[in-house]
């Protein structure tokens, strides 16, 4: 078994580990460090990727499907193993979800975190305050004290995860990426739902072996998954399943970068470990994530432009969830920018799971044919 296959098998096996002592969270603006410093495992809620039934009794069908799907999980007991859930005020849909989750989640504690839309001085101050409220809330609920040292240990742990994931991602800058986009998505999903200590050990072991072999191990597997086709940057809404990535790759392209909150945004930057005050450093890091909801659209565009250059991208696929207003509003702006920069853009609007895949397949295949 090659080191690469061994690593992916290990990841798959680790995904099956029991999740005990977890606190769920829905947005990547929730600092995992605070949850870890409270002795819990941060668990990203991905939704179940299926049509909802129960959630429609609480929220209208014209809601962000990820929100509805997550709520369905809270209602049908899929997230009963969680010791609590953090819902950040990252959109109106998340805000409403907080109200309903408290009703739906039974005895499970629901935490709320306000997140400003700007990383200016006022925004940072407000977010720093929101984080301190969140810390107090979690301390009171769990009956413990989060120490500055505990936060700093957690910062180091999470930074290590980010560093390792970035190392894996950067291997995709080469002409024949070592991972298919689907494989990489699975790795990120695992890293967001598992114990960071274990994640770091497994990824570090793989990276060590890989470095020792002079990177020879990451040879293309083009016969297997066609990883040498047109290179795609995928951007847009929350994506809970790799189905669209698998479809793109089955049709002959390769997703080399996922500018998604379930992709590279998760590890795009680190927390300053030498900052005088841990919460200040957390506020700065989490408020500077290159997300569509932030007011500073130029910062996001510059980041995207950097990524299409670094990862030698041929075309961009913009994925928007139905009723996800933030991304539906962002799309025309980003499309125009990409097109002016000479990058073809394909727009796909879908649910939290792939439906009408025949039509989506035609569009993706035509886009790939256009790039070839």
């Amino acid at each position, binding site marked *: 078994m090659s080191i690469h296959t061994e690593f992916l098998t290990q990841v798959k096996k680790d995904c099956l580990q029991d999740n005990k002592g977890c606190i769920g969270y829905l947005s990547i603006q929730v600092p995992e460090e605070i949850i870890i410093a409270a002795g819990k495992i941060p668990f990203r809620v991905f939704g179940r990727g299926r049509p909802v039934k129960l959630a429609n009794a609480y929220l209208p069908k014209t809601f962000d499907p990820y929100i509805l799907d997550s709520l369905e999980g809270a209602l049908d007991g899929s997230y009963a193993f969680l010791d609590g859930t953090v819902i950040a005020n990252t959109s109106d849909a998340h805000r409403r979800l907080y109200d309903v989750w408290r009703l739906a989640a039974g005895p499970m504690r629901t935490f709320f975190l306000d997140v400003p839309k700007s990383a200016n001085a006022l925004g940072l101050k407000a977010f720093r305050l929101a984080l301190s409220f969140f810390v107090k809330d979690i301390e009171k609920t769990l009956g413990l004290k989060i120490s500055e040292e505990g936060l700093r240990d957690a910062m180091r742990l999470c930074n290590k995860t980010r560093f390792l994931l970035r190392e894996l991602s950067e291997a995709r800058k080469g002409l024949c990426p070592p991972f298919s986009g689907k494989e990489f998505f699975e790795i990120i999903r695992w890293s967001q739902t598992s114990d960071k200590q274990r994640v770091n050990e497994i990824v570090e072991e793989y990276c060590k072996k890989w470095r020792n072999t002079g990177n020879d191990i990451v040879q293309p597997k083009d016969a297997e998954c066609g990883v040498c086709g047109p290179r795609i940057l995928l951007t847009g809404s929350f994506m809970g399943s790799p189905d669209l990535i698998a479809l793109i790759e089955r049709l002959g392209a390769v997703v080399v970068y996922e500018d998604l909150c379930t992709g590279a945004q998760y590890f795009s930057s680190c927390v300053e470990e030498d900052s005088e005050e841990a919460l200040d450093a957390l506020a700065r890091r989490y408020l500077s994530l290159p997300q569509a909801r932030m007011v500073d659209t130029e910062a996001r565009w510059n980041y995207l432009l950097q990524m299409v250059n670094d990862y030698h991208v041929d075309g961009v696929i913009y994925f928007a969830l139905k009723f996800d207003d933030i991304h539906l509003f962002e799309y025309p702006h980003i499309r125009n920018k990409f097109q002016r920069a000479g990058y*073809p853009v394909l727009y796909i609007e879908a649910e939290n799971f792939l439906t*009408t895949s*025949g*039509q*989506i397949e*035609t*569009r993706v*295949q*035509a*886009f790939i*044919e*256009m790039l070839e």
Partner: protein
Amino acid sequence: MSIVAGIDIGSTTTKIVLMCGNKILGSKISSTGVNCKKTVKVLLYGMLEDHDIREEDIHYTVATGYGRRMIFANEVITEITANAKAARWLMHENVPVRTIINIGGQDCKVISLDNNGIMTNFTMNDKCAAGTGRFLEVMSRILEVELDELGTLSDNAEDIPHINSLCTVFGESEVISLLSQGRRVEDIIAGIHKSIAKRVGAMVKKIGVREAVFFDGGPAFNKGLKRALEQELDVELHIPPDPQVTTALGAAIIASEQFLRRAKNGT
């Protein structure tokens, strides 16, 4: 004989074009039905008989359309690429095509070509049959007129009503209420054409109109719809002699090119 085939398995009809080199040998259309494999077989065997050729004389086949993966073919391409190829091939000597509007049985596509006739952008409606051939089919059934009469009847429109519902189901209810108000069938048909033109027009404007504009797909036979689209977009539309088989023709052209390329490379 180096004969090649382009097969377009659409949601409503299946089309086959046979080519020999640069020459079109013939084309045939049939309703797709529930078993597209059988439809293709019957259609193809009919063509082989008509042209007195054997199955093994067909050296390369390219399939396209929604059922493209359902049959055996040497290559599978999308109807968007095939359509762009055919429009360029058909029109390049007469008019330089820059925009293609294709209205099919269950979707509608707008394709943008650059100055060299290469596809640079496209848009496609999805999820619903609004503004497609299916919409016209449903409306003709309610109005009790034949599909191919719609264009001629709309010539006699006098007072065109606004049909605001783009959804086929809601559009149906709207047409029924217009009938109950005593509106003339000819006027309603013209209103239907106008509503489709508005929807398609919005798609065209999204990627930008550049002349010459090529219009194909089954509904391109409908001169009333053509007129409504021309008014909406304020451009002249160019319709090929047989607009329903353009996509199959594009597939056949690609098959021909691939066959020649492979013969040259000895593969």
